[in-house]
């Protein structure tokens, strides 16, 4: 990491935007407090869609996809397609039904559907694990961007970024600032697209809609020697592409903090329609990310930078910033991209830590350890858990061996192997029993962590079951286990089956 001192303009920009979003949050303050994801007064379907998108956009979207595209070309589209196509699955199979259950979190849904404290506790544990893995990727992004802004090494940047992040969380929590998701989406997408237009203009490509016009740049890259190969399977086989894409799709449909989004919408019909807007708003970012990587390659080529694989890998997760540098953008304009990345990562970390801490304080501490705890005590435990989780993530993020998008994909594999089957069968097959759900979640945990930990050790396992893509085999396997165990055990109580048929699947 080149340490060439603090970049003043980006640092000031970061401080200004953080202060501004705090002010906007204070202006839209609600009485419900920061521990609920409130979307404020009626904002229309497009507004809810923007909230879905801003909730979704993280360092993985902002930095990660461009990084993967820079290194692996076509393989990156497995992420783009997976992270948008997952919303189709979510909408057509689960969104409305889970909302009808009226449960705000994954553990609450599991308890309501399966009537089992064990299943609930497992779902809470899985939620916390997903939080940890997902946040590790965000922290890596925060640390990289902070090291770029402040000219520090990776580890000090990680600590600085964590301190600023927690400080911001505590400050907005004490002041009672709500998150204005529409404002945030607007800021993020402008931070991403305006510098991209300038880069495209500087390099002489169609700049009005660079998302539509980078084809020429791509074809030029394909013709130049020692550059990005445009063939689809150069950086991974077709099996790897499909496995990754499928994993990210089912993971999206099972991710706890995505699901909880649907409860903040006043009615079911608006919730459904807002998904259409949500995919469009997310798509705006995903149409643009590959452009960054393509133009970075072009700019890098013309500046004759070294392109050996090790150096390229170290650069990949910062490629959106490097694209600006190589194209000769002024420092403040690159700073805008950096600020966008930090805000995306901060807000994702906040949302996830609150979800994870809630799972601990309510589903594990209150329901299992200390049922006598009052509201105040639970809040206290939740705040403590937030801090502990944040510190755990820092430890995990000190030396992550993978790219941001790859770490995030592991969290999706976990969600796709555990929560997705539990939601899917819970909604679409009334016979699914609690024993089936518990067995399914345990199998899913075993598959995910087996692929992650044993993959490098057992020959052949890493090829069949890549850690980032284990749900192509994992999710169907878990579904089969759940069906088998459910058929061998007593059916769930009649009232739950009746509720499922009469309420959840009612017109």
């Amino acid at each position, binding site marked *: 990491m080149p340490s060439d001192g603090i970049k003043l303009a980006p640092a000031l920009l970061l401080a200004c935007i953080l202060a501004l979003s705090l002010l906007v949050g204070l202006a839209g303050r609600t009485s419900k407090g920061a521990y609920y994801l409130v979307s404020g007064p009626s904002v229309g379907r497009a507004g809810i869609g923007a909230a879905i998108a801003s909730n979704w956009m993280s360092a993985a979207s902002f930095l990660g996809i461009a990084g993967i595209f820079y290194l692996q070309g076509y393989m990156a589209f497995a992420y783009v*397609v997976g992270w948008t196509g997952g919303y189709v699955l979510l909408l057509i199979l689960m969104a409305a039904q889970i909302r009808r259950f009226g449960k705000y979190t994954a553990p609450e849904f599991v308890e309501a559907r399966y009537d089992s404290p064990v299943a609930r506790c497992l779902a809470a544990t899985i939620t916390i694990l997903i939080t940890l893995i997902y946040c590790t990727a965000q922290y890596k992004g925060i640390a990289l961007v902070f090291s770029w802004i402040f000219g520090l090494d990776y580890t000090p940047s990680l600590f600085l970024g964590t301190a600023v992040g927690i400080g911001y969380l505590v400050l907005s929590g004490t002041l009672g600032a709500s998150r204005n998701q529409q404002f945030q989406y607007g800021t993020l997408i402008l931070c991403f697209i305006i510098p991209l237009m300038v880069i495209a203009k500087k390099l002489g490509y169609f700049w009005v809609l660079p998302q539509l016009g980078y084809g*020429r740049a791509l*074809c030029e890259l394909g013709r130049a020697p020692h550059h990005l190969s445009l063939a*689809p399977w*150069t950086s991974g086989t077709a099996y790897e592409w499909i496995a990754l894409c499928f994993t990210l799709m089912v993971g999206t449909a099972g991710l706890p903090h995505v699901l909880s989004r649907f409860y903040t919408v006043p009615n079911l019909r608006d919730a*459904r329609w807002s998904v*259409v807007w949500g995919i469009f708003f997310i798509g705006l970012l995903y149409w643009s990310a590959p452009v960054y990587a393509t133009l970075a390659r072009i700019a890098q080529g013309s500046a004759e930078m070294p392109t050996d694989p090790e150096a390229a890998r170290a650069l990949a997760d910062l490629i959106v910033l490097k694209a600006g540098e190589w194209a000769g953008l002024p420092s403040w304009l690159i700073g805008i991209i950096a600020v966008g990345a930090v805000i995306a990562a901060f807000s994702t970390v906040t949302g996830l830590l609150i979800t994870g801490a809630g799972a601990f304080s309510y589903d594990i501490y209150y329901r299992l350890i200390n049922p006598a705890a009052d509201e105040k005590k639970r809040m206290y435990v939740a705040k403590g858990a937030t801090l502990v989780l944040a510190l755990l993530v820092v430890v995990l993020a000190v030396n992550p061996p993978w790219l941001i998008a790859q770490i995030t994909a592991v969290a999706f594999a976990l969600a796709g192997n555990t929560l997705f089957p539990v939601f899917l069968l819970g909604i679409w097959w009334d016979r699914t029993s609690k024993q089936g759900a518990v067995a399914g979640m345990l199998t899913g945990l075993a598959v995910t962590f087996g692929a992650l930990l044993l993959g490098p050790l057992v020959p052949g396992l890493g090829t069949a079951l890549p850690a980032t893509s284990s749900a192509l085999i994992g999710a169907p396997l878990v579904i089969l286990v759940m069906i088998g165990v459910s058929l061998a055990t007593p*059916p769930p109580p009649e009232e739950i089956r*009746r509720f499922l048929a009469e309420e959840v699947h009612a017109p």
Partner: protein
Amino acid sequence: MTDTPPPRPVPNPDYRVNFFRPRAGYLRQKVRYTWVLLISWAFFTLGFQFLLLLTQDTPEGDGLITETILFGFPLHYWFSGQFLIVWFILLCFFFNLFVDHLTRIHRKNR
């Protein structure tokens, strides 16, 4: 499951929820449409990748599709990177239109 389970009250078939055997009326129509969408979702997303495999001339996947240029892009880049997102938006749009329609009919009937 060959051994006979202990006798237990058989639930009224009307309360059954099964994606593969949905009860008649609202649910069956909705599930039918869900199938159409799931198939078009899978066909376009994963089917295209199989098409790439089928038409490839080299192990890297170069072939007829990758040499075709559409809107300035190699066809596979245009399809996966640009068109599929549009396709997903359309799928969700049509699903919502259909569910709105279905809900209107069945709420009126009740």
